[in-house]
């Protein structure tokens, strides 16, 4: 109970820090809408001479990509940057003198940041959908929301593990940029996985990649109905949590041994 209360306080605090920067919020929303506008014209150009590509029409493909890009903007948190910075600056030492698991602490803070970003970015997303004449039609909101939660866990755990690399490397820009590129491309955030060869699609669905963005977007757009994909996604989320926990234990042991 006290751990939950601590998580709530941390999430609330980081949510407030994320949401209180009014100018930053405005700039992000304007930049986001500009990006969506460019995405619209890019995909419109792709579909100019062909009403159907990879079995998807223009509206379906654009809805998929726009939703995936929005999810990327909202549920991808800078937990990797923050953790790496705290390790390098030694600030992590102060956190280790507090009775809370490091992964849980950063997870709660990431959740707060995601909730805050959702508050100001979802209206912009709704505005874009209205302007482009698109709409989300999930066959089941509970499944879609569960898939979104799993997606957050996957992305957060990955960011946390990458952030722990701050203990080994000074500059994590390359590692984080590579991670974001792989997650977006193989996760179906840049182009729907339907555009990939069938074998690659199967492989990406079995592996965790499709479950970063493609699975939640498919639930949100009504392309997925059953539980099967969600179960695979949830299994990967559990595996990632376990892996993040083990990595955290290992690094903390090293931190404890070599000093903060």
């Amino acid at each position, binding site marked *: 109970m006290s751990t939950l209360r601590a998580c709530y306080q941390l999430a609330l605090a980081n949510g407030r820090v994320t949401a*209180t920067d009014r100018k930053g919020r405005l700039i992000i929303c304007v930049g986001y809408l500009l990006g969506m506008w460019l995405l619209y014209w890019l995909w419109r150009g792709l579909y100019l001479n062909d009403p159907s590509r990879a079995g998807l029409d223009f509206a379906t493909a654009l809805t998929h990509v726009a939703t995936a890009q929005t999810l990327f903007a909202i549920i991808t948190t800078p937990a990797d940057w923050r953790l790496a910075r705290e390790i390098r600056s*030694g600030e992590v030492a102060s956190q280790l*003198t507090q009775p809370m698991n490091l992964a849980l602490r950063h997870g709660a803070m990431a959740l707060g940041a995601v909730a805050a970003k959702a508050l100001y970015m979802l209206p912009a997303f709704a505005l874009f959908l209205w302007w482009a004449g698109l709409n989300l039609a999930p066959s089941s909101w509970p499944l879609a929301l569960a898939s979104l939660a799993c997606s957050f866990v996957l992305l957060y755990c990955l960011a946390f593990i990458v952030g722990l690399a701050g203990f080994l490397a000074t500059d994590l820009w390359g590692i984080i940029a590579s991670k974001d590129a792989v997650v977006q491309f193989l996760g179906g955030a840049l182009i729907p996985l339907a555009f990939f060869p069938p074998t690659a699609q199967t492989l990406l669905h079995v592996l965790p990649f499709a479950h970063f963005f493609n699975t939640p977007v498919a639930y949100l757009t009504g392309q997925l109905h059953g539980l099967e994909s969600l179960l695979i996604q949830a299994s990967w989320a559990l595996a990632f949590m376990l892996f993040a926990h083990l990595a955290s234990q290992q690094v903390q042991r090293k931190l404890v041994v070599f000093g903060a």
Partner: protein
Amino acid sequence: MLIQAEALNRVYRSPLPGQSWGERFARLIRPKWSETHSVRDVSFGIARGECVALVGPNGAGKSTTIKMLTGILAPSSGRVSVAGFDPQRDRRAYVKHIGVVFGQRSQLWWDLPVQDSFRILQALFAVPEATYQQQLNLFRREGGLDEFWLRPVRTLSLGQRMLCEIAASFLHAPEVVFLDEPTIGLDLEMKARMRELIRQINRDAGTTVLITSHDVGDIEKLSQRLLLIDHGQLKFDGSLAHFRQSAGDGHWWAAKLGGDRDAAQALLAGHPAGLAVRHNGDWLEVARDERLPLPELLQLLAPFAIHDIKPVEQSLEDLLHGFYLAGKVGAREAA
């Protein structure tokens, strides 16, 4: 003993770079290491309610010792026990019983008001509301926390922030508080306020305090006992009064005379007590000893026209400075 350190050692290993390409490649597979002993065979015990200063020059091993005591650094060998816990093994349970202030780090939220940072810490340490209010009241009453209670931490002055850091470390009514350079960079008024608060909590609540500081005022005003560490080794463990007596060149009487100082020196040197006598500028100094009480000294020096006489004691700062200097000379000679 609430804190018990036995034969603590901490060795840092760092890889030695190869001189040639071949050697560098070989060391990728079989690295060679150089070892630095940051803390060497340190043992001490601290009883509940004590306020102890851990002092020493830069790089002496103070912070390493504090890190080992707080559980964020494992000793290479030796044993630590604080409040019945092994700080490294039981870290998550243990940290609920301690408070820590690292002068260069913050446990507060930069962008949030002070009160929100404290609420987060209350939740993290699961502090009951009554305890939270009780601990806070002292700092609100004596420390003037209310003046900036609603201001974001980033807008506070260094002194105000340190006051918050110290209040935060006492928030969960810990058994022990480790203060690593808590008054660094503070002005005189804020230092005095901080010391008074720490002293009050140590005295009234019986909270054990271990403080490291380069500020002699912190040591003199707060601690009853001194742990002096140099080159990773514990060089002195005892009361402040004992340190004053045993360190430096002792206590002297200094007399300014109108008459022949050499003759006076010869007279004093011939005294049966056999005390040390020396010239120091215009002053003639004789070691203070009960075998030569002041009335007798005055009687002896009366023929030499005493203009002035005063006791001479080295300040704690001078004593510590002399101690550190001796350590450096010793280390150079050993090298």
